[in-house]
């Protein structure tokens, strides 16, 4: 039941911490003051807690912290590591694709993943891929626009 030391790469830096098995990835990130992944629904449905583990998106609320041992973790805070917003972030701003912003890091990260899999997504692709991201402010029309704009910007 005791804490276990895990070593992993966090936004490009090697880090290490001791953590118990019952804590999830969002809690782990809080220790590193990374607050862009946040637990809302707690059930894998809303995407507010999206984190990339070895380049693949997971719900931090449903992912045991100890599982990142030996892996590479990256969060929304890493997207502008070079000082510039990513094309997706910029498209979200340009299209006004959020209101309260609580869901936004999750949408931004998932859009990056979508465009990696599918650089020129149709409406249908967007709807399927973002089915696990909810926005209570219902900025969906603007989000769909932003995804398309980011896709265009990338090509």
């Amino acid at each position: 039941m005791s804490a276990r030391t895990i070593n992993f790469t966090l936004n490009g830096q090697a880090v290490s911490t001791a953590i118990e098995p019952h804590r999830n990835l969002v809690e782990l990130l809080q220790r590193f003051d990374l607050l862009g992944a946040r637990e809302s629904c707690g059930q894998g449905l809303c995407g507010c807690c999206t984190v990339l583990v070895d380049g693949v998106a997971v719900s931090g609320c449903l992912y045991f912290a100890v599982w990142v041992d030996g892996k590479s973790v990256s969060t929304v805070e890493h997207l502008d590591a070079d000082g510039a917003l990513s094309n997706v972030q910029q498209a979200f701003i340009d299209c006004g694709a959020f209101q309260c912003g609580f869901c936004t890091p999750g949408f931004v990260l998932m859009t990056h993943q979508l465009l990696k899999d599918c650089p020129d997504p149709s409406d249908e692709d967007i709807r399927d891929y973002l089915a696990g991201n909810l926005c209570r402010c219902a900025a969906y029309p603007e989000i769909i626009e932003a995804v398309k704009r980011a896709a265009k910007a990338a090509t």
Partner: protein
Amino acid sequence: MIPFEMVEPRSLEEAVALLDPTETTIRAVAGGTALMLMMKAGVFQPTRLVCLHRIEPEHARITLTEAGELRIGAMASLSEVEKDSNVAARLPVLKNALRRLSNPRVRNVARVGGALAHGDPHMDLPPVLAALGARVTINGPNTSRELPLLELFAGYYETVLEKNELITAVTVPQLHDRKSAYIKVTSRSADDWPAVGVAVTFSLHDGVLRDPIVVVSAATEKVTRLAGAEQVLQGAAIDDAVLRRAGDAAAAEASVLADAHGSAAYKRELLRVYLRRAVRQALDESTPQVRQ
């Protein structure tokens, strides 16, 4: 969540040994997506989780056997199956079902073994694989057995697995020229779990339907094959009247349960209608996936 121990065995054998034939608070964890939901809700409080992530990598492979069957290791993630080229080429119905199963983050993490062993009837993979005639391989301490997938499910959230048995693979026979379709019917929002799932496979010779397999999930306490509907379809030339009779037979024979997705009466109607639509969809291969 309440503290517990997490062990990470390096082999299947070790994993099985770490499970306990009688202790219900010890369980395997694959992707953890279903388990964590139960733990957060307080309905499952483990003392030990046996993590399967570090067992031999072969258990995560998706391979084509010499017989042309697809063998999916239980530790393959749902995304891996979704993106597998053999799946895409040979079992488009499976790929399509995965595309609308939960969401990409869950699919990235959840494993085939977890998706089968969880036993929640409101799941998409079991009915599709069952209609495809899949078999599961199950390993226990020094034992290995294979079962038709349908026989895995014993009841509501219940399987025939012993507490110290693990699913290691699921094998899907060749589809050959059989037609197939799966419709996930959601009644509340587009991203929902299914209210009813209907999967069908059959062959078609000279306009006559042969050897149908009709499977329903979500509406019933477990994934269920509908023999009555199959009987109506067997040997029939497809027209509206036959499909209606098949739908009626399905609605009559399935013991449909009410849940948060709808009353039993309503879900029975959905089954009646979507059985018809699933057969039509399987016939009309130009539209691989119909949104309900």
